[in-house]
């Protein structure tokens, strides 16, 4: 089996033009990942710039309302730039700088990763170009403005379905055009090796902190950890340090869109099959001839037809469970958390909150679950209002 495999998943299915670039990245990553100076510099950025460690908040009202397991919220939404994306971006930008790269390119769906990349580029004095599906530039106009404010160029992608998958394709194309000075700051735990590993490692700070915080607050590990899954970076970050703790249930919440029995869904585990795309072998929503399906979700960040290879493996082995949450359920959870806890979650994260509402009442009161709030929901308010029939403008 070739490099970067998780069971049969993963690998490096990319054009020859990019092979030396990913090899160079892997070499640099192996050199720096255990380098104390690099880690010290990164920890400082995490703590002083991004505001880590993020809080583990006991959601008392939600717990009482649901009447079962104690619910904790891992507040990645409180990070600088408002989402977990900054963890990975600070790591990759620092790595890129060490590699002598002066330009960052990135894809973005909801815009959170684009904003995080533009932020790191500004911080490190690097050039930045973000590719974003044209449809997403419209549903996430505020984030487009934020990126521009941070000095990035935002390129609307009009090919294909003009959403996240097309943004990834276009960023890959751009990387083949210009490699020498450019690092592709991939935003999720997907793509060709070494990206799934690098992104997972930088995001695993989430589960590292959850573990410490739970031991401190409860004196034991959680019974279940929940996170939403598109490509799966906040989920793998939430799961990673618990994989060996077999008693901790790992639950990923996919976007079912209008339902897994409709064509308007982005639930890859529920509806996809094994395939090779965007540099990796994994599960993909596709037709019988392997044409990638035009997926749909209300959440631009989960609107992706594939899933990271480590999730595919965790699914195969049964170590993690993946559930599908519809638009309706996510929107209800979005509103529920706002009213119950005074926290407006990203619509992506609301998918995990939705499943917590199903799961917690079925569990005992002495059990605990942790839900990762991957991002904050300010960016989604206008879209949710429209979903509810209110025409408001940002």
């Amino acid at each position, binding site marked *: 089996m070739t490099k970067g495999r998780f069971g049969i998943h993963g690998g490096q299915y990319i*054009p020859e*033009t990019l092979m030396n670039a990913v090899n160079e990245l892997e070499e640099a990553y192996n050199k720096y990942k255990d380098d104390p100076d690099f880690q010290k510099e990164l920890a400082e950025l995490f703590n002083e710039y991004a505001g880590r460690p993020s809080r583990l908040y006991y959601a008392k009202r939600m717990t009482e309302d649901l009447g079962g397991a104690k619910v904790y919220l891992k507040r990645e939404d409180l990070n600088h730039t408002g989402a977990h994306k900054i963890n990975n971006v600070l790591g990759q930008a620092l790595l890129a700088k060490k590699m002598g790269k002066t330009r960052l390119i990135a894809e973005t769906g909801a815009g959170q990763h684009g904003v995080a990349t533009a932020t790191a580029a500004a911080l490190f004095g690097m050039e930045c170009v973000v590719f974003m599906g044209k449809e997403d530039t419209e549903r996430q106009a505020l984030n487009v403005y934020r990126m521009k404010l941070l000095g990035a160029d935002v390129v609307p992608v009009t090919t*294909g379905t003009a959403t996240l998958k097309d943004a990834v394709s276009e960023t890959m194309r751009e990387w083949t055009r210009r490699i020498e000075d450019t690092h592709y700051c991939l935003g999720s735990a997907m793509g060709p090796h070494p990206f799934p590993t690098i992104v997972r490692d930088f995001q695993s700070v989430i589960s590292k902190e959850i573990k410490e915080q739970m031991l401190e607050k409860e004196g034991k590990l959680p019974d279940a950890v929940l996170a939403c899954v598109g490509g799966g970076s906040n989920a793998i970050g939430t799961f990673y340090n618990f994989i060996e703790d077999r008693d901790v249930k790992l639950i990923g919440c996919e976007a079912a869109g209008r339902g897994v029995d409709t064509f308007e869904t982005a639930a890859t585990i529920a509806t996809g099959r094994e395939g*090779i795309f*965007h540099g990796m072998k994994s599960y993909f929503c596709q037709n019988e001839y392997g*044409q990638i399906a035009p997926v749909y979700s209300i959440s631009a960040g989960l609107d992706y037809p594939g899933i990271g290879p480590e999730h595919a493996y965790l699914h195969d082995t049964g170590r993690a469970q993946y559930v599908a949450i519809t638009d309706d359920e996510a929107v209800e959870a979005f509103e529920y958390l706002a009213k119950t806890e005074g926290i407006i979650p990203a619509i992506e994260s609301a998918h995990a909150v939705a499943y917590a509402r199903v799961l917690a009442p079925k569990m005992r009161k002495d059990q605990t679950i942790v839900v990762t709030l991957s991002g904050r929901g300010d960016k989604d308010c206008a879209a949710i209002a429209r979903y509810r029939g209110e025409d408001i403008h940002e």
Partner: protein
Amino acid sequence: MSKIYKAFENKKAFIPFITCGDPDLDTTKKCVLEMIKNGADLVELGIPFSDPTAEGPVIQGANERALKGGVTTDKVFAMVKELRKETDTPFVFMTYANVVYSYGAEKFLTACEEIGIDGIILPDLPYEEKEEFLPYCKKHGVDLISMIAPTSSDRIAMIAKEAEGFIYVVSSLGVTGTRSEITTDLASIIKVIRENAKVPCAIGFGISTPEQAAKMAALSDGAIVGSAIIRLLEESGPAAPEKLGEYVKSMKSA
């Protein structure tokens, strides 16, 4: 051994690319026959893919039009079967790994053997991952074509040593599409290929004019032209087969 070598026998090969089913399979068939009549030595047949990540806008457009028209892998196989009744010019498929993987590698390559496909080019299958399909290719006598890029440097010898059929040399960085100028130091890349490979090499990406084709063919064993053909096809409407024939003639005589 496939019959790809015949395309390079005692001459520089001219290799046109066409996306099957753009705008329909009947047009593709007519265009292929016209191009062969006018001197095409090997034809690269693209099986459309929804997300062709190595293609520029022109070929992306062709893929989209073909899929919109309802083309499937099975329909492309049926067209090739028809073409084989009229020509024995070598054919190679150009598509993406998922098209083969999803169809089932064994089933896909069995079909290739049956309909007379000589080779297959998968731009998202680098040297490191070729074992995914190579055993099936070998079993069915289909050459898995290797690509070498301007960034390949220390990888050239390794790739060239194991190459089959011919080597596809990518002329420049980036995706497919016409370029006014090709600035890569191809001569030194091809020198390393020559020292290591048993098969010929042809240059593709960015070639559109007879002058460029002549220059690239002089450096290597042939020239591959894609986007320029797709664009001409798109502009010519019903006259496409004839126009493509004329174009191939002009390129071939350059």
